[in-house]
């Protein structure tokens, strides 16, 4: 068995874990990061894409709001290329308590959210699809953030500073030596190969799964409540500004324009399994009704895809866990040396995407303390790879690049403008990747046809380039069809059902995928 030795083993390849790896690597520590699946495949990749201005928490949770205000400003500098500066709006709809708006203004002033009331006329002129019955509107510096791009930039930056990043390596056991955690054994679920990793400090950055990893280390009582929420991506940008309901945080209160779609979120249900991806019909109904309140006609727009994310909510023993939204959204760094008398393990859980950098900073501070080191955090000033110019990405970027080379480039995925050259590059860089792994990198298959045309093309190109056996290639194709169906069937109606039926004709009728050699 291969053995690796490192200063810091990070378990978990979401934004937090990748943020810890980047932070620790910048501080000169040797880092190994392991993730059971692909980077950002857990909670990080399953959110709506909102970079909070702090406005959402200004009334309810001023502490969280202040963190968001500060982190929003930092990330706009250091992760500029991952952010689209959409701006945000809070609007008071007829369903919102009128008195809340004044509390909102006061709350924003108290915590430092840059909030400006604008005339309803101006709001409607900026966002013509907004409900014309809104009574007040406020501008805030919300934005949308591409979490996949962020996590890869973090991983790439960490690698450039010597870190080893190992996706598809699942923790089998956490190693204990008396009162110390000394690392972990991990397994590649695809090959079955195991690696022993010796680490001076292990960081448990597994979010909603943190209790399980802590238990593997023999530590009980790390209670993380998984709060499951659904999000629906609508075809097109129904709005170009993040639009929030001006009310206490609740279900279906925000529409986030990100990349080519807009995402409505979210619901909130307590679950006992962080891998629970159930989508209930009543939740879909609720999101569509909530969408109608912000954007009339929302139900007639095309719903592309639904997914669930599981929030890690660190339990506060003083509150009953009936509504997970009342459990604190704050993050918690658990130094198990102080908490449980076990050296060499730090758990970070709770929190939200917007504050991942701060969470990583506090975690690596705790790691350094255990190692007896004093090294300053640099992630608030060091730009991520790709963000050096400080320019935000804009929606038309891909199209502008394509137009420059249109005749010479073959499009594999027309919806998301993915060229054959880009796809072949990704296949070469990530051998043995599934189409789903490639999707997260290129957005392949994420547009209106949900892979109807690009799945066959991609499989054919992968087969020719990767030298897969026919059975493997067929498996890759069928897996991706199932993967796409998973997020499609609960919201299949209207034009998207037409699309799904056309895709059935292509895959079952024309290609006869059901009768391929297995």
């Amino acid at each position: 068995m291969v053995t690796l030795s490192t200063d810091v083993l990070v378990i978990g390849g979401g934004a937090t874990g990748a943020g810890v790896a980047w932070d620790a690597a910048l501080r000169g520590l040797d880092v190994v990061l392991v993730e059971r699946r692909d980077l950002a495949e857990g909670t990080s990749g399953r959110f709506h894409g909102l970079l909070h201005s702090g406005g959402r928490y200004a009334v309810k949770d001023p502490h969280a709001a202040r963190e968001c205000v500060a982190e929003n400003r930092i990330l706009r500098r250091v992760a500029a290329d991952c952010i689209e500066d959409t701006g945000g709006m809070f609007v008071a709809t007829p369903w919102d308590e009128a008195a809340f708006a004044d509390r909102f203004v006061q709350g924003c002033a108290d915590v430092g959210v840059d909030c400006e009331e604008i005339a309803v006329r101006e709001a409607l002129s900026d966002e013509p699809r907004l409900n014309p019955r809104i009574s007040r509107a406020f501008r805030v510096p919300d934005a949308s953030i591409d979490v996949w791009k962020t996590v890869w930039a973090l991983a790439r930056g960490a690698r450039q500073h010597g870190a080893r990043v190992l996706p598809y390596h699942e923790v089998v056991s956490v190693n204990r030596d008396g009162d110390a955690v000394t690392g972990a054994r991990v397994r590649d679920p695809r090959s079955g190969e195991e690696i022993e990793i010796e680490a001076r400090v292990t960081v448990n950055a597994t979010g909603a799964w943190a209790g399980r990893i802590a238990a593997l280390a023999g530590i009980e009582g790390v209670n993380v409540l998984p709060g499951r929420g659904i999000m629906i991506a609508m075809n097109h940008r129904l709005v170009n500004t993040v639009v929030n309901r001006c009310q206490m945080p609740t279900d279906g209160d925000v529409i986030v324009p990100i990349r080519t779609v807009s995402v409505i979120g979210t619901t909130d249900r307590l679950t006992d399994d962080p891998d629970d991806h159930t989508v209930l019909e009543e939740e879909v109904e609720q999101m569509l009704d909530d969408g109608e309140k912000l954007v009339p006609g929302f139900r007639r727009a095309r719903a592309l895809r639904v997914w669930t994310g599981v929030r890690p909510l660190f339990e506060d023993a003083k509150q009953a866990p009936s509504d997970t939204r009342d459990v604190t959204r704050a993050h918690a760094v658990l130094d198990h040396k102080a908490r449980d008398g076990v050296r060499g393990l730090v758990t970070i859980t709770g929190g939200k995407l917007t504050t991942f950098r701060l969470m990583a900073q506090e975690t690596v501070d705790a790691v350094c303390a255990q190692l007896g080191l004093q090294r300053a955090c640099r992630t608030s000033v060091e730009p991520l790879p790709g963000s050096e110019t400080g320019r935000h990405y804009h929606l038309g970027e891909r199209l502008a690049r394509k137009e420059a080379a249109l005749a010479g480039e073959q499009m594999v995925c027309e919806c998301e403008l993915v060229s054959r050259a880009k796809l072949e590059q990704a296949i070469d860089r990530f051998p043995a990747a599934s189409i789903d792994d490639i999707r997260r990198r290129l957005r392949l298959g994420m547009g209106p046809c949900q892979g109807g045309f690009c799945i066959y093309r991609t499989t054919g190109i992968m087969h020719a380039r990767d030298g897969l056996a026919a059975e493997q290639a067929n498996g890759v194709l069928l897996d991706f069809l199932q993967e796409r169906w998973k997020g499609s069937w609960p919201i299949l109606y209207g034009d998207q059902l037409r699309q799904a039926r056309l895709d059935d004709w292509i895959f079952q009728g024309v290609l006869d995928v059901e009768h391929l050699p297995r």
Partner: protein
Amino acid sequence: MNRELHYDAVVIGAGVAGLVAATRLAQGGARVCVLARGVGSTHLAPGTVDVLGYAPDAVREPGPALEQLAASQPGHPYALVGAGVVADALDWFVATVQAGPLPGYGYVGGGLELGGRYPSALGALRPSALVPVTMAAGEAQQLGRLCIVGTPALRDFHPSLCAANLAAAGIDARAVPVELELDRADANTLGVARRFDDPGWRARFCARLAPLLGGEDHVGLPAMLGLRDPFGALADVEQRLGRRVFEIPTLPPSVPGMRLYEILSSALRAAGGRLVLGAEVVSGRWSGGRVEAVVTRAAGHDRVYAAPWFVLASGGFASGAIELDSHWTARERILGLPLRGVPPAGEPRFVPEYASEQPLARAGVAVGGDLRAEGADNVLVCGAALPGAAPWREHSGEGIALASAFRVAQVVGELAGSPAEATA
């Protein structure tokens, strides 16, 4: 008030079902008009005539399998039309294509006696009762050593995967990539087909390909052997390469499907029928249980088409003629006809496994045994609008379209000839 146009029959939809129903009605002496939002499923489908490929196991003899299916599924379109009509419809179709505008181009195959299996672009063996003559040499039983030819310039066909899957099925196949003379990197089969119409281009293509071939006796190409004279192109390429050549259908737009559209629409014109594209039927004018007229919306104004008979060949969910809205209510959008096969509220419409049959799959416009729509005495239904089938899984789409269209024309003839209807 708009001027009303009067016909003996108005057909809604210009897919295989609509064009065949209209042609048959016109051949029976009716003044017929086809109204359609646009071209129908032909441009998306492979251009083969699939009658019954899976039931659910692979079907070798479509005729008997079809009779069994009709006996066990009384709501299936084949049960409504009967096996005899399927056979008549296929015979008529073969003769119609033969007499059509593309010289030498026809449909061949085992028909209802012995279904053939032909390579799909993925290298699965698709079952079809009849295929265009340009695909005939791909029948799996007759294949010897085989070479699958493609080009990186064509993103919609991948010869290596096709060949690998055929090899896994025991066929001696290998892939040969060839460079094509194209001026853009993202051509589709339609773009290449237009080049194949040019004999000079064809000759150069064959000159490039010939040295790459070995001992193979068959050459499979993506379906792109021209639009104007595919039979001539096939003969030319076969002669130049010295091998049997066949087309393999791939992603839309479908070149063989476009040929089929050309053939069927010219058969309609030859029979005296009229075809109006860009004329979306948006509503019907009812009188009691009958539709008196339909209204189209085109070019900014409405137009009224009155007729004693209407044929609904507008397709199912794929065309949008049947819609499921966001409140999970399904409806037929043009005339508001009742549906059959829609799972009741609270029951699942879809299931989480893609490969399973979806509960909504067999929904369609409710019809009686003579294909008349429930609640509309003078509206007949054919093609994908019919309930009871899952044609993309059964590989039965063209068989249902042809047979039900054929039957619809018969029923109109029978009913229109009866005294009660003559005065209508």
